[in-house]
């Protein structure tokens, strides 16, 4: 199992970084967050077509690039650094991983190439974004095979061209797909704290579906693990960028005749944050290295999401605080990351949830 990124992986990172540097600026993010779809078609096409980034982690046999969690993590870290706005997380990560982990063979053959090529943007409809145990309790398939129920928050639900749904039924959980034009389906945009990641409410009333695969509790937990690690990478990228920019600011900002970065109260806070970041980042990247080598430990994905949730939040709070008044203005970009941090902190489980899940994986049964 590797301990550090290889030269090839570092090179891959700089390719991704250069592309996003040009195509994912904060002024673009500010424009896109005012639109309904929240993304730029041209950038998406370039990203999926020329670069092939969308299929980074999906198997070659199904049209993907055949890399694993390590390279996906690199892409997501770079996206998190630059607040990339677009359906990468919803379609490539959540839907891509759901199909790869949960679909039966025929449906993998049908769906994965479309997702991997970026030709179709697919949203994954989950009725619980807090805990894996809650999935499939609100969205239910009736004995007649029709889907009903509400998913209150679906990432990119409005702009997606197709929906995947994990729903319960008398015989257990399953993965289904639903056409955007299906009867009984209504999608309403919701106001999100982080407007760079669009949310919508999705309601089904006796909607026809197509079965994609049976979902065992083990497979669903694995999916949740992978999605949590992927999100953690995106968050680490954002946290690292935010800390770098904040420290750069403290070196320039002069008060009382000296840069505020020379003041111990500020230095010490930055040193503490660097420690938090180093631990969270080392752990996140380690988990992807171990997943790629098939040597992962069961409690590690939750360990990582718990650390990263706290870390990104703490850095975001300090990023505003250390900028003082200017940091609280709309014009300053810091709040864009602050908003992303707040939403990512709770998406796919809070730190508290993941700590409990981690202890259970370590052998401590449910808390009494």
């Amino acid at each position: 199992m590797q301990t550090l990124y290889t030269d090839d992986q570092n090179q891959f990172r700089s390719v991704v970084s250069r592309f996003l540097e040009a195509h994912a600026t904060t002024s673009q993010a500010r424009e896109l967050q005012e639109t309904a779809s929240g993304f730029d078609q041209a950038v998406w096409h370039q990203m999926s077509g020329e670069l092939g980034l969308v299929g980074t982690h999906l198997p070659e046999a199904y049209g993907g690039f055949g890399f694993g969690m390590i390279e996906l993590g690199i892409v997501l870290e770079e996206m998190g650094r630059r607040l990339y706005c677009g359906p990468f997380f919803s379609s490539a990560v959540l839907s891509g991983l759901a199909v790869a982990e949960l679909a039966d063979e025929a449906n993998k053959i049908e769906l994965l190439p479309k997702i991997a090529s970026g030709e179709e943007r697919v949203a994954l409809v989950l009725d619980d974004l807090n805990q894996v145990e809650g999935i499939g309790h609100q969205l239910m398939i009736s004995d007649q095979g029709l889907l009903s129920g509400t998913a209150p928050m679906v990432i990119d639900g409005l702009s997606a061209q197709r929906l995947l749904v994990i729903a319960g039924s008398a015989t257990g959980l399953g993965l289904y797909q639903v056409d955007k034009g299906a009867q009984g389906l209504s999608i309403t945009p919701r106001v999100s704290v982080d407007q760079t990641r669009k949310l919508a409410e999705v309601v089904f009333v006796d909607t026809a579906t197509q079965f994609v695969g049976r979902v065992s509790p083990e497979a669903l937990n694995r999916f949740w693990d992978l999605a949590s690690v992927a999100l953690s990478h995106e968050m680490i990228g954002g946290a690292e960028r935010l800390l770098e920019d904040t420290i750069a600011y403290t070196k320039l900002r002069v008060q009382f005749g000296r840069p505020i970065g020379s003041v111990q109260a500020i230095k010490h806070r930055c040193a503490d944050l660097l420690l938090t970041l180093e631990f969270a980042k080392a752990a996140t990247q380690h988990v992807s290295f171990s997943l790629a080598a098939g040597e992962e430990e069961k409690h590690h994905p939750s360990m990582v999401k718990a650390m990263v949730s706290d870390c990104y939040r703490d850095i975001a709070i300090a990023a505003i605080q250390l900028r003082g008044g200017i940091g609280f203005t709309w014009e300053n970009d810091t709040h864009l990351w602050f908003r992303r941090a707040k939403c990512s902190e709770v998406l796919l489980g809070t730190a508290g949830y993941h700590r409990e899940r981690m202890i259970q994986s370590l052998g401590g049964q449910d808390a009494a």
Partner: protein
Amino acid sequence: MQLSEIKAAVNQFIDEAFSPDLSLVAWRQRLVAAGWAAPMWPKAYFGRDFSPAQVAVVNEVFQARGVVGAAQLGPRRLAAETILAHGSDAQKHRYLPKILTGEHAWCQLFSEPGSGSDLAGASTKAERQGDVWIMNGQKVWNTSAHHADFGILVARSDWDVPKHQGLSYFLINMRQPGVQVRPLRQMNGHASFNEVFLTDARVDHNDLLGQEGEGWAIATTTLSIERQGFARGRGPTPIHREITGRVFEEYAKEIAIDNEPYTWYPQREGRPDLVLQRAEATGAINDPVIRQEMAKLFCLTEAAKISANRVAAERTRADNQVLPAGSLGKLGASVIARQAAHVHTMISGAEAMLSGPESAEAGLIAETLISVPAISIAGGTDEIQKNIIAERVLGMPKEQRMDTGPFRDIARNN
């Protein structure tokens, strides 16, 4: 020398020179004479100029043969490496062999009651009278000073220059009337350190290390050796086998004395290794609040390990990336120790009031709870580590100094 030749040579030496009936000193004198006591040292000074890889082979043979090597532990190594780096030819010949044989124990006399984090603010007075230096002042936190024969001493020889330029570095004989050693009892009841009072204590001018005024630069060498944990590789390391014979009996006594100050060190790290088993044994594992705090602890301990492995790997690869310095690891150890103590307290509940052999883990937990405050102070406080991280890793600007100009004029403790 090829590695296989080294192996053969060490084996042959042991066959010819070693006997368990020798006194420890007599055996080590043979080691020193043959260059096997400190093979990483230069040939001119009792060594063989060996690389770390070559030293490793020597150590392996000693280990495999169950044979005792040179005296290793405690502050004597700091003294030895510093003398080797900065001493005169005469000083090296006078002091190094008896450090290696264990005949002389050493202690470090750096910290003072008035200068802890600010080591360069030492105000122990060194006044020259002809060929002798007269020392007056007080030192503190001196491990093993109570049975030391010599000390490495930093004292102020010039009060009219800036603080870092007025220090000199001395080798002082501890067995003299002007040196008084008192054990310093810590808050956890152990007395691992001493206070040392210097009252007209005398040091021969021959025992000035380096030049007058070079004390700070030389002390920096000692401190960096202390931090590196002797990265150059140690000489043959101790064995842990029960073998009878005079040499082994004397060696066991030496080890017991050398290790005595450190018995509580694992406890100051918070004993996170005992958390899970205690939580299970006591049923605390069923408490959802304790589970949260345990999880926070395990996140820290696992991440610290992963991060340390990464730093080690990057060093090996010699990347040009800036590495978070050792200070980050030290700061992490403090955070871990405090969280572990917090969790142990939660697990114990009211029983955390108890101490002694009847209390949890035969007293280890109580000792942990009152030893953890040391970890964020010893070897550089957390606050100093944070300054280092901010300035050297993050490149943040230094704070304006209040201690430039002649030392005489700088504010200091009375």
